[in-house]
């Protein structure tokens, strides 16, 4: 038996992050866990890629970031969605749905 592929589908990481953060602000680890939970373990997020993606989204203005002091005096960075982020999520969701359903139709087609 082959290990099931848990890589995030190329190009969808940003959308998954935006979706996760549209529910509530989270730090990096929280986002990774949430994606895993909601996808029921289908996707496992590589931390390096995730943190880089967060950096990128913050730079592009889709996310805001805030530093919080945790109880054991570490610094944690919490991300939240901006208005631009909401808009981007809408666009990406629509785009994804359109493409995913097209792929689904293709696969269903007989012969």
């Amino acid at each position, binding site marked *: 038996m082959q290990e099931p592929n848990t890589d995030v589908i190329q190009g969808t990481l940003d959308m998954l992050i935006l979706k996760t953060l549209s529910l509530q602000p989270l730090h990096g680890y929280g986002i990774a866990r949430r994606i895993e939970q909601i996808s029921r373990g289908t996707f496992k997020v*590589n931390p390096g890629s995730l943190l880089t993606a967060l950096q990128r989204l913050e730079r592009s203005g889709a996310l805001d970031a805030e530093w919080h002091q945790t109880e054991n005096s570490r610094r944690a960075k919490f991300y939240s969605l901006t208005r631009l982020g909401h808009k981007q999520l809408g666009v990406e969701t629509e785009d994804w749905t359109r493409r995913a359903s097209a792929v689904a139709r293709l696969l269903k087609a007989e012969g």
Partner: protein
Amino acid sequence: MSVWRQLTRGFHALTNRADTDQNVADEVDDYLENARLAHLARGLSPEEALRAARIEIGGVTNAREQVRQYGWENAVEMMLADARYAGRRFRSNPGFTAVTVITLAIGIGASTAIFSAVDPILFKSLPYPHADRVVTISDLDADGAPMEVTYGTYRELAQRSHSFDALAVLNIWQPTLVGDGDPARLNGQSVGGDYFRALGISPMFGRDFTPSDDRVNGPRVVVPSHSLWQHRFSGDRDIIGRSVRLNDEDYAVIGVMPAAFENVMAPSVQIWAPLQYNTVFGPDSREWGHHLRMVGRLRAGVGLTQARNELNGIARASRSDFPRVPWASLHNGLLVHSLQDDVTSGVKPVLLAVLGAVVLVLLIACANVTNLLLASGARRRGEFAMRAALGARRARLTQQLLTESLLLAVAGGALGMIVAELGVRVLVALSPAGLPRVGAIRLDAAVFAFGLVVTTLIGLSVGVIPALRASRAELTLGLQQASQRTTGSNRVTREALVVAEVALAVVLLVGAGLLLRSITDLLAVNVGFDPSQMLTMQIQESGRQLQFQGARLDSARYEFFTEALAAVDQVPGVTAAALTSQLPLSGDFAGYGVHFDNDPDANAGGSALGYSVTPSYFATMHIPLLRGRLLGAQDRSGAPRSALINESYAKRQFPHADPVGQQFDFGPRDGQRYTIVGVVGDVKQSSLEDGETDAIYVTPMQWHWVDNPMSLVVRTHGNAAALAPAVRSAIHSVDRNQPIFRVTTMDALVDKSVADRHFALILFESFGLVALVLAAIGIYGVLSSSVTEKVREIGIRGALGATPGSILALVLGQGMKLTALGIVIGLAAAAAATRAIVSMLFGVSRLDAITYLAVVVTLGAVAVIACGVPAWRAARLDPTTALRVQ
């Protein structure tokens, strides 16, 4: 705005690197801690939980690096680091850096300068709208040589041809301007009414000439150039309609030409007036004299060939309503050229040769830079293998190499810009007088960029390759080889480049040598007179406008010349002085029809240069009398007309008879014939290369016209130029108001007559020198790195008993073999390439053995020195130390 955010955050990261790094580290740590806690909560032991968290995150350092690398600021940071590193490297290798940068600068600078200079002349079209439609038309003599047209021919073509929108003839016109300030002799043109329309340029303001201006006894109107208007008429727009005093007549200014107008046929012209020739004229009138240039603008859609065919058709089919004279019968057809060809064809060979030479220099520069970088790349194989082994990615190494290359290119380019700028100035200063469109020469940015890009690409990309090779798979091999050997193919390439450099240098040096010998031979040519210690200037009697025809001896005017000559004779330091209507090697050229009794028929006969000279001319110039007598006081107006002819003319015209006593017509046939009274030596009139020219000398009092201006020739004791002020004031003591111009020494005129070649020679010499130095650097570089690579081999040879002498011979032999191969190839290439400069050679074959031999000796000597240094180093190596070198 997200671009704004990108920029500000990037800059923030750049300037606060520590903070940014701390943030990344904190975030990664926080992630790790959360993961650890999660694993702990799942029941793992503290150690296992930490291990699992680290595995999950894939290594803390890696994660940090990955996140850190995001953002444009990292690329900038890396480039800065690379630049710093490159800077350190260049500083620690000043020799390599200086030679590379200087080579680049010379290659780019020289080629940019030369191309900027030749571009407006050879490649750009003339600065007129639809410049390809502007053509010149010349008459052809019996030998097929072009000559100026007559007004009669113009009149016929203007009416019979349908190829032109505008057609105009023009003549030199040099009026004297009096008014504010000193009297000035202006360079002008008298032109047909359509002249400016033929070129396609209208006055900046005011009006153009109209056909009604260009008629005999028409209005006296002029159009000044922009610069004359600025300098002489203070740039005042109210000038229109005002009158200026030229040759003692009032002329109304009707327009001013724009500043951008280039009068390419005669760039120094400052003022134009209508030609105003007669439309009704007899055969002896000036309207049938060959002294006009003709320029026309083709109708849209009419090609050059079509116009050529039409005009030659007209030339062949004479019509009774347009009677022609025998000397303008158009029997030999008409020559139709684009104006572009007309003005550039004279200098084209020189410019193309110079362009070719600079391309060779650029090639040598490229070869040299390539060579240097190959050597440097080879030396760094170890460094790159090491870095690759330590985990540097190939892209990273490439980027660093490119940064280094770019730095070199930028430094070379910046220095090249200076070289080019200076080069253009030097070129303009050196340019021979006949070079058209000098004013349009300026540094061409596009050409400069082109040179920079080409040299950079060729030379520098080659430097990247060997170093990259090291970063490939052969890591251990590279490390082992680090300081021992370069690969064979690399050395073959470098040796081939050196051979090519030597060969190219040979071609350039042969060119320079041939030109040098041509000039030496030319300057050794006997000009027919003694040019040393001679002062000359033109003087003009500007009392009234020159009447081209009908003004027989005008005693008032002649009086001024006689008195001026007498005054000059009195100046201390003057040993002899004379006046002549045309001065040898000055550009003066006036020929007139001749008919001897022994010519086959009444209409045949050639033409000869006509000199109207005072009797002392021959003694002053040291032109020898070979037969008969010289001209004298007895040859005055009213006396039987006497003339002298030159030796080769006499021999050809009278091979078996005594020329003295022969009679002939010269100039207009007015029934009074000239008798030859003596034969004098040949004189070069238009250039040192002149073959045998036909010349006839008469006194001004027996000549048809009073020539004006006249050239004064003065033989002096000591420095001729120093006497100019005294001579000038002597003339002004006769009449203050007469302009004096073209003051120069005869020696200067002789030098000027070889100016074209001299220009080419200077460039070839400097390029040849550069080529020689670069080739020497190339040879030295290859040999010296070969010695470094072979230290062990040399050590072993030494240990086995090879004498220093035999090692010296070994290394020297290796270098000289390359040199010899380069020389052989170069000689063959030179034998072919010198075809391009044949037209500039004089008295020397393009395969001249002495020149080739001299080049071989020179290059050989330089190569021995270049090889000698590394060879000497090799010979002095101590075998024990040499063997210890790893």
